[in-house]
């Protein structure tokens, strides 16, 4: 994809999102409980099924070979390199969020690890003390709601805000400008996303399989996990200052077990069970 076609693509995505937001805002207010807003659930479930098939027949076998055949130090290098490639986007978004500490630490990492093209992590053992930031988080910090939940083909769970974030982050990425020619651009995008997917799947191989095996409805479980996790990273892991919003604290605040109707606090006068 060359630069111009990327802009066209971005405009297309934005258009679809605005259309989605427009046709589905009425139901939002009546939704009780958790802030799950999934107006195109049937479409999402279809893409989810496709992604699951890809996981079973391609990603999982590849990740298995990767984690068993490739020596650990080389897996570490792949991981370091991917993280290093991401750091310009982290720096840009940290600055947009006014977090100069995070930007500073990420910049230090970028230059120090840059000596070895990002393959070796010279801060190993103590980490670099910066969090991953992206434009979806930047928007969230500035009060933009998640919008409709989306499952992207191959890329997985997302929502309106984070999809816009993904598109904008392309423009923060120096690789977009360094590499020219649509062929090379495509190769890099596919190679990088593919490697990220394999690395992630390999590192969480058993956990993801267990998560699937214990799910009654894997789609609904991942949707809940994605939305909660994004809210948490937008707050940089801090507890919600207003315990009545998206992380579901309100659900706990309002909840009283029915076998303890007289209890104001949810504390139990006599344990009935």
């Amino acid at each position, binding site marked *: 994809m060359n630069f111009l076609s990327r802009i066209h693509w971005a405009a297309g995505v934005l258009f679809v999102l605005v259309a989605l937001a427009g046709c589905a805002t009425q139901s939002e207010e009546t939704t009780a409980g958790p802030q799950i807003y999934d107006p195109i659930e049937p479409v999402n479930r279809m893409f989810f099924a496709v992604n699951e098939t890809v996981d079973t027949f391609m990603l999982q076998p590849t990740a298995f070979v990767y984690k068993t055949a490739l020596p650990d130090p080389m897996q570490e290098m792949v991981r370091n390199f991917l993280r290093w490639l991401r750091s310009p986007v982290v720096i840009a978004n940290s600055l947009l969020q006014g977090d100069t500490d995070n930007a500073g630490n990420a910049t230090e990492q970028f230059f120090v690890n840059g000596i070895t093209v990002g393959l070796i992590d010279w801060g190993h053992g103590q980490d670099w003390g910066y969090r991953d930031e992206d434009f979806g988080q930047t928007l969230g910090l500035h009060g933009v709601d998640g919008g409709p939940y989306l499952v992207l083909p191959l890329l997985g769970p997302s929502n309106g805000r984070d999809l816009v974030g993904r598109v904008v982050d392309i423009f923060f990425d120096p690789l977009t400008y360094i590499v020219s020619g649509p062929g090379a651009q495509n190769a890099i995008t596919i190679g990088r996303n593919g490697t990220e997917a394999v690395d992630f799947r390999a590192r969480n191989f058993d956990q993801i399989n267990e998560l699937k095996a214990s799910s009654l409805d894997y789609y609904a479980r991942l949707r809940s996990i994605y939305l909660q996790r994004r809210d948490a990273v937008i707050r940089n*892991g801090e507890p919600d200052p207003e315990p009545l919003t998206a992380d579901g604290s309100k659900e706990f605040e309002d909840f009283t077990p029915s076998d303890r109707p007289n209890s104001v606090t949810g504390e139990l006068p006599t344990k009935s069970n």
Partner: protein
Amino acid sequence: MNSFHRSIFLLFLCIALPLAPVHADEKGAAAEKFVANLGESALALVTDKAVVGEARREKFRMLLNEHFDLNWIGQFVLGRNWRRASPEQREVYLKLFEESIVFTYTNQFDSYSGQMFEVTGSGENGRYTVVKSKIVDPASAQGNVLIDWRLIEDDGKFWIVDVVIEGISMGITQRNEYSSVIESNGGKIDPLLARMEEILEGLRKRT
């Protein structure tokens, strides 16, 4: 408010303020100890290679029932559907709920690789005490996992009612999942129980 009332109020504040944090600290410290003890017992069980299979599950079940208010959690997870469930459905549900937790977690014991558990602090969140902790992976600085424990207190005894892993609440995740299953089955509860049974059967086979 006239000035007399105000001074009484201020006086009251002066007396009450120094007392309140001390009380909160004591409660927090007790809650931290409670979670730390759970961590130690759990780690001892995970690393004890002599206890396996059903014996290990039995020990885990005891630990679970001593520290977690499963009745509370089960009701929270079922949400408004709890009120609609018959006493029989509730009983079956709570039993399946406990069994699922036991098998889900004991099945993962063997992937333990030297991580350490550390309680890092506590605070009040509305009606709840929240204990903060982390799992430290000596193999990787990026492998640390933050875990918050939500507790209620009953006659000086704590009960855990939720576990939040890196911002993801187990209670809310399951609540969302279960309500999705019930909704897609036209609001009926029996299909949820059947599905729980089916998944549990699968987990039993994975041991």
